[in-house]
């Protein structure tokens, strides 16, 4: 029996954490993720979990404490946003290269300059090369489901990599919506105990974590880390299949919506995918063959599967809620277009930078992108591939 409830995205993640009952949670508050450690510290105070909650003095320290505790053999969670994730940046690499499966709830928020507390994806996109698994979530339900699955993927003995589970700040983190929770015991049994093969507090098998690595071995260690990341796709699908058994909800590497017979398609991350689904239903009712591919796993990037899913599309708009300042398009665009390059028949592909700093995205905005794609299909020309949606001139 699933438990029908209504929760904000932050509360949903905090409850996933409570159900799993990690050993350690170091955290420093930052909008809009603050509620996660806030709720969790209440669970600690109420004795609902036996986690050691470590209030630290910065996000750099939060991630450092995560590394220390996970290295010691303790299951460790944290949460952050925006500048907080940026301040962790140095330590993110230490966590992943030390093969420490920390799970982090990232509540996506714009990075400062100008100061802004609202949603876009510039924070987690800035961490995309840090060796962390990245899983994105459309709504509170997916944030909850993905967090539970991420712990199991990260801790798999063939993976042993940290994972961040992302959702849109405010748009889903602070929106109360319906959700179906899984019973505590089922979540606990699904995730299981954290049993690392090697850990610092194991007197029978002493190890060092984080020593200097010379040129004789560094590249081999990096290759091992990359091989673990390559393996994530397979494990993520295994974990998703198991998760479906306890939840009835199906997850893949990505989600497609009305994509099979579509002529034009959007590739989108997080909450705007829901808005796009409403726009698609409206356009489909008018006879337009439009579809959507919603990214779930961004790291690793499932390039063969995405190329296969998009190969029949005539024109694609890749939607980036992050300005990568490459002067050629955002980071998702670079990934998707690169994935399509190996196809013999390549769809025409353009990029839209949209929704930066919390700029609201309406169904009519999405409809305007499909309309632009129609123009591209009719003319046979992609035109300028680096575009902005809804920016005032």
């Amino acid at each position: 029996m699933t438990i029908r409830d209504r929760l904000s995205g932050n509360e949903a993640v905090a409850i996933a954490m409570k159900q799993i009952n990690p050993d350690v949670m170091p955290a420093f508050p930052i909008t809009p993720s603050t509620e996660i450690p806030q709720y969790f510290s209440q669970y600690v105070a109420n004795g609902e979990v036996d986690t050691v909650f470590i209030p630290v003095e910065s996000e750099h320290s939060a991630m450092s404490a995560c590394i220390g505790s996970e290295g010691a053999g303790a299951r460790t969670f944290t949460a952050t946003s925006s500048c907080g994730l940026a301040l962790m940046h140095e330590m993110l690499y230490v966590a992943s290269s030390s093969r420490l499966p920390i799970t982090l709830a990232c509540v996506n928020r714009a990075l400062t300059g100008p100061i802004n507390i609202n949603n876009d994806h510039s924070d987690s996109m800035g961490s995309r090369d840090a060796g962390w698994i990245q899983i994105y979530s459309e709504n509170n339900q997916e944030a909850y489901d993905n967090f539970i699955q991420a712990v199991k993927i990260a801790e798999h003995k063939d993976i042993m990599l940290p994972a961040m589970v992302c959702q849109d700040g405010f748009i889903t983190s602070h929106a109360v919506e319906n959700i179906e929770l899984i019973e505590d015991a089922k979540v606990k049994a699904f995730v299981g105990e954290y049993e690392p093969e090697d850990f610092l507090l194991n007197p029978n098998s002493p190890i060092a974590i984080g020593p200097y690595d010379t040129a004789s071995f560094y590249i081999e260690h990096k290759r091992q880390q990359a091989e673990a990341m390559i393996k994530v796709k397979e494990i993520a699908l295994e974990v998703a299949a198991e998760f479906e058994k306890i939840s009835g909800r199906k997850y893949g590497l990505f989600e497609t919506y009305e994509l099979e017979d579509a002529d034009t398609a959007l590739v989108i991350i997080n909450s705007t995918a829901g808005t796009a689904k409403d726009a698609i239903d409206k356009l489909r009712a008018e006879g337009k063959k439009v579809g959507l591919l919603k990214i779930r796993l961004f790291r690793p990037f499932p390039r063969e599967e995405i190329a296969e899913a998009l190969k029949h599309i005539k024109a694609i708009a890749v939607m980036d809620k992050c300005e990568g300042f490459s002067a050629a398009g955002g980071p998702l665009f670079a990934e998707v277009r690169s994935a399509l390059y190996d196809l013999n028949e390549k769809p025409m592909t353009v990029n839209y930078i949209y929704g930066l700093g919390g700029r609201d995205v309406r169904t009519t905005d999405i409809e305007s992108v499909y309309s632009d794609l129609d123009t591209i299909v009719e003319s046979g020309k992609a035109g300028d591939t680096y575009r902005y949606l809804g920016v005032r001139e």
Partner: protein
Amino acid sequence: MSKLTEIRWHGRGGQGAKTASLLLADAAFNTGQYVQGFPEYGPERMGAPITAYNRISDTKIRVHSNIYEPDFVVVVDETLLASIDVTAGLKKSGAIIINTPKTPDEVRKYLNGYEGSICTIDAVSISEKTLGKNFPNTPMLGAVVKVSGIMDPEQFLEDMKASFAHKFATKPQVIEGNVAALKMAMQEVKGI
């Protein structure tokens, strides 16, 4: 065809318009519906105009944008009428519900010729009578339920009694006042 009701709340930071939108989401959730309750965040500060939203539907809600063409608008602080275009996009088939001691005719002039229903409720006085303090949220919630018809008023009252009993478990003395505030608001809202 799904039945979707969209509501926009206007208030000032600290008055609890966000909380009211979450309470309404809770109440609608308890009647088995799909709900969204969310605030629009700006540079938060006490007294600044804020907006919050509700979507209530009999089918799953996927859209994640603000609400531009609401069915109902709720104004928790009447001083906003002079500075905010509260009826922007409001459907003619809907209604605006304003916290004011004035009558609907007296506030009409602030509403840019809005042709739909104008409802007023003296939430301050109801709150002071029933709760002894100015907490306009509870009476506003009662007025919205009455005007919008999004749920059965009797069932709503029963649900809210249970909800207050849970929420105020450590302050049982305020439960009765809150229930009285809801009932009085549902009786006294003008302009339906």
